[in-house]
């Protein structure tokens, strides 16, 4: 396991070992046991130039099962990580575009398979580039490994539709844009409208757009600022059981990371079916408008 980033910047978080700075990464590139993983929205962005030695994981073509709407299974994951030259005890530093939106998603999926040492590069690809740090188009060559087949654990950090129905009445965080939350749109502004048949949000969900957790330079806000957003603003209390969702579970992975690793909540689940499932499901309650709304009396357990 690679050493930790001890800079005071990350020190105040609940689990500072989950974050590394660009400076730390630059100093540790090439370290034994450290593998840098890039994960972006655009499937070709890595090829235009990546951190030297980084490997690529694409959320769509690598992590999703091509047939079922689900993630790859333990054998598929072992094949992927084996091909990338990752061992079970590798330290993974994950980074990507759009404030680590897709990097956090990949990190969350890696966690489903119990890969222990996963960290995000604070500030992501944009900060690395803004600091004029090196990028290369050279293909990364790593010796393939024999990564063990470990089945996914969907029970602790992943929520399904049925779990959300049972959870109604406990804290839900909707991390989509205000327009999606209010039911004006089914996808983020600037994104194509697709998939969901109904618009709105899950009753009682608080709207905290995911990007609020990021500062202007793309790094995460300080712990105090994050507490103000999620606790003072959205009413969460440490110890709460929380489910976060968005459109397909990618933006809410980012919020899952913030609540779990930066604020130290121990029971946070990501509902990856998210709005594309809820908004098309028959007979589930939906609230439109800016207010969280109430759980329908018939569903109060």
């Amino acid at each position, binding site marked *: 396991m690679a050493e930790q980033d001890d800079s005071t910047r990350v020190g105040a978080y609940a689990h500072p070992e989950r974050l590394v700075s660009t400076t730390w990464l630059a100093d540790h590139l090439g370290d034994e046991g450290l593998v840098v993983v890039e994960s972006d929205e*655009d*499937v*070709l*962005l890595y*090829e*235009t130039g990546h951190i030297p030695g980084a490997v690529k994981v694409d959320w*769509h*073509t690598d992590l999703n099962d091509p047939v079922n709407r689900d993630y790859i299974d333990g054998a598929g994951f072992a094949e992927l990580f084996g091909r990338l030259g990752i061992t079970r005890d590798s330290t993974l530093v994950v980074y990507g575009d759009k404030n680590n939106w897709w990097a956090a998603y990949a990190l969350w999926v890696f966690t489903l398979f119990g890969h222990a040492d996963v960290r995000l590069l604070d500030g992501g690809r944009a900060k690395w580039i803004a600091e004029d740090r090196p990028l290369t188009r050279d293909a990364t060559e790593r010796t393939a490994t024999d990564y063990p087949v470990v089945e996914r654990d969907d029970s602790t950090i992943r929520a399904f539709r049925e779990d959300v129905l049972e959870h109604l009445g406990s804290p839900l965080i909707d991390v989509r844009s205000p327009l999606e939350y209010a039911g004006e749109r089914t996808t983020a502004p600037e994104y194509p409208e697709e998939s969901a048949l109904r618009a709105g949000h899950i009753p009682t969900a608080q709207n905290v757009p995911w990007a609020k957790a990021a500062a202007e330079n793309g790094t995460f806000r300080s712990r105090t600022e994050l507490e103000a957003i999620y606790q003072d603003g959205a009413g969460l209390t440490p110890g709460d059981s929380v489910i976060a969702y968005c459109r397909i579970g990618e933006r809410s992975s980012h919020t899952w990371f913030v609540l779990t690793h930066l604020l130290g909540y121990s029971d946070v689940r990501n509902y990856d079916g998210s709005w594309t499932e809820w908004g098309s499901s028959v007979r589930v309650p939906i609230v439109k408008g800016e207010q969280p709304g109430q759980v329908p009396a018939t569903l109060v357990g």
Partner: protein
Amino acid sequence: MTTPLDEIREEFLAVEPRERLLLLLEYSDDLPPLPARFGDSPELLERVPECQSPVFVKAEVEDGVVHVHAKAPAEAPTTRGFASVLAHGLDGLTLEQALATPDDFPDTLGLTAAVSPLRLRGMSGMLARIKRQLREASAA
């Protein structure tokens, strides 16, 4: 007769699926710059909302010959590659040839597995808008 678009398709299908992504990167690097006149009037270009990134296209017909211009950010290389394929493939065709491009052309490049159908939808949106602009230009 074969058109430049057919040749580009053959070029993609001739290489392994993983190599196709790198070929798309070459197209992305090679998107022709916009003529200077668009710099002064960006409203002449049409936004393609089917793409997740800000992409703009403009198709014109001059003396019966089609010209396609596009603008896409370097941070969105896939979309930029799609725009470049269409710009290179359609530029110089006659109006009839360009309008005869099958709507499913993006799905025939062998990129579905490497890029994902969701992302290819952006390219279909671009092609549909280019053809509509060409029809409007020819009716005017």
